[in-house]
């Protein structure tokens, strides 16, 4: 009787350990959001931007990770701005096929001619934040490919929630300098500083305003 009770206890304890230990992969996954600016002068950077995503971000994704491409245009807070989504299968062979397929989506995006008069970076960031939160991934990264000069269309309002970027690491990639920036670097510095203050004030985990494309792999590894 005692042995039976002991055995039952051991069984229950083992079951409890396993049931508490069993978890889905979300906490270990990485969700990445790439914001591609297609407005104004940055529209010319489309091809190089796609190249960076293809060679720098896509190969760094491991099975289970996800990537979404969102364009920055005059009104970015729009589901139509989501140009491509990728969620890698846990089977490595399938994941490779998905990578190659997504690379094709990116190539199509690069080939299409599109531009916008205004630059709604905040709207794209809000759309991206919502997407990243929905993934519930343990690591959430936001890469912004833009000159970081926001010009909102009249009538468009953008204000972040206090926890808008909670648990999200944000990095501005390939930030090109405008003519005015070259004439007065302080303009560029002030602009970047404002962005930093703004995202950190809205609970961003970290901000990197000068991430070089060659350092993207290390950056992802570091944040993972």
């Amino acid at each position, binding site marked *: 009787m005692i042995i039976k009770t002991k055995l039952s206890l051991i069984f229950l304890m083992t079951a409890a350990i396993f049931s508490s*230990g069993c978890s889905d*992969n979300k906490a*270990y996954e990485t969700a990445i959001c790439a914001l591609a600016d297609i407005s104004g002068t940055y529209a010319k950077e489309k091809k190089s931007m796609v*190249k960076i995503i*293809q060679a720098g971000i896509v*190969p760094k994704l491991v099975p289970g990770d996800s990537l979404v491409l969102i364009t920055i245009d005059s009104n970015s807070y729009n589901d139509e701005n989501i140009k491509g989504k990728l969620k890698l299968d846990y089977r490595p*062979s399938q994941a*490779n096929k998905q*990578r190659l397929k997504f690379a094709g989506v990116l190539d199509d995006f690069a080939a299409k001619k599109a531009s916008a008069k205004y630059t709604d970076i905040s709207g794209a960031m809000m759309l991206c934040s919502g997407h990243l939160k929905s993934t519930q991934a343990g690591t959430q990264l936001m890469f912004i490919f833009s000159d970081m000069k926001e010009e909102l269309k009249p009538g468009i309002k953008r204000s972040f929630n206090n926890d808008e970027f909670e648990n999200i690491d944000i990095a501005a990639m390939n930030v090109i300098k405008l003519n005015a920036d070259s004439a007065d670097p302080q303009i560029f510095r002030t602009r970047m500083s404002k962005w930093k203050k703004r995202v950190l004030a809205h609970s961003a985990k970290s901000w990197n305003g000068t991430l070089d494309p060659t350092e993207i792999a290390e950056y992802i590894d570091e944040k993972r």
Partner: protein
Amino acid sequence: MSSFYIWPQMPFLSIAVLVAGSMVFLYLARTPLHLALDSLNDGIAGGMEKTAAWIKSVVEKMQEKNRKVLLESNIAESEQKIAQEFKRVEASYTKHLADYPALHLKLDESIAQIDSDFKECGQVVPEAPGWNDAVESIASIKATASGDRVIEKMLKELHKSAVDGEKLALAEMRKTSSRRHKILSSLAPVWKKILKAMTEVDNKVSLVLETSGKIEKYMQEYEKIRDGGEDSIDMLSSRATKLFVFSMLVITVAGFGAFVNFQLIALPMSELVPAGTRVLGMHVSDISALVIVTLEVVLGIFLMEAIGVTNIFPQISGMTLGKRRTLFYASILGLFFLASVEAALAVLREHIAATNAATTQALAGQTETAAGTEGSQITVIGQATLGFVLPWILAMVAVPLEMLIESSQHVLSKLLILVIKMLGYLVAIIGHLLSTIMKTIIHIYDAYIIIPTQIGNLIKSKS
């Protein structure tokens, strides 16, 4: 500080009055304070001394227990060795002495043949008829002496028959001698056969005696251990420590081998097992790979148990030979299956790695070179071989594992005893130190009140 001064405007005077007052107070309170300090000393230092003594007694008990465990385990081991050796003797007797009756029969036959041959050789050679001399003497009588032609003719006939008889006897003797020589020469191979049979018997008996000699050696060792002398304890302890260190070393190396094995199959397992869930932070595919590696070790343990190299499970060692043979074949089959699976997984791993590399290159906009394909063929063969060989190597871990389990009991206990012993010494040292400090405090106290003490002594002596 100034708040303690009686006269703040006169600090030196205030201090002097305070010191004098304290001296008088401490002098008057000397006896109770001495008693209080002594009690404190007894309480702390004495307590620590008792703790140290208790630790010492615990250590002694543990040492005794460890000694007993060491002796008992080695006695059991010796008994097992002797039992095994007896089994070997039995097997040796069965194997080597089974054909002894046949050998003995062969020897008997050879000896009987020699005996009969000797008997045959011993037969008397037929001699010429005994009356030959008489015939010869009659034949030698000259016929002319009698002059009788009949007698002469008869004598001639007698002479002729005597000569013929001699010739016949000589021929018969030669024939018999020749036959004897033949018999004698045919004895040589029989002797050789006997010699060969005897050598064979000698070899087999030597083998049996060798095993018996081993039993004698083990018995001596067993008796020595049973006596439980200090030298045998030291010898056993040193042997256990040596075993522990070496088995630990081998297990560590095997651990690295298991890690390499795991790395080899973890990636391809994610292709086979759904990796969408984690248990205790690990992918299910990783756990599956770990299970395969662990299964190899388990099968190795069963294999070693079946062939009698290790003796971890008494149930297995107590099995009949037939059952153990079944277990042996089952383990071999299982290991072969797992090794084949690993080899296949290793090939799959290389395929996945190559696809990953190709995808990365394609994403980076590069084209694959031809040299890469050749290199990958060599890698595939290498990884498949490694995948097939590693499980067999891991299976061998059962031997050092048993050694580690056996020796760790003594070594860990020895280490624990050492730690507790050191703790005991530490407590004793602290106790002694505190006792010295308390005594020093009492002496300083006495030194501080030396003036009132001397005055008191003076008054006492005058009164």
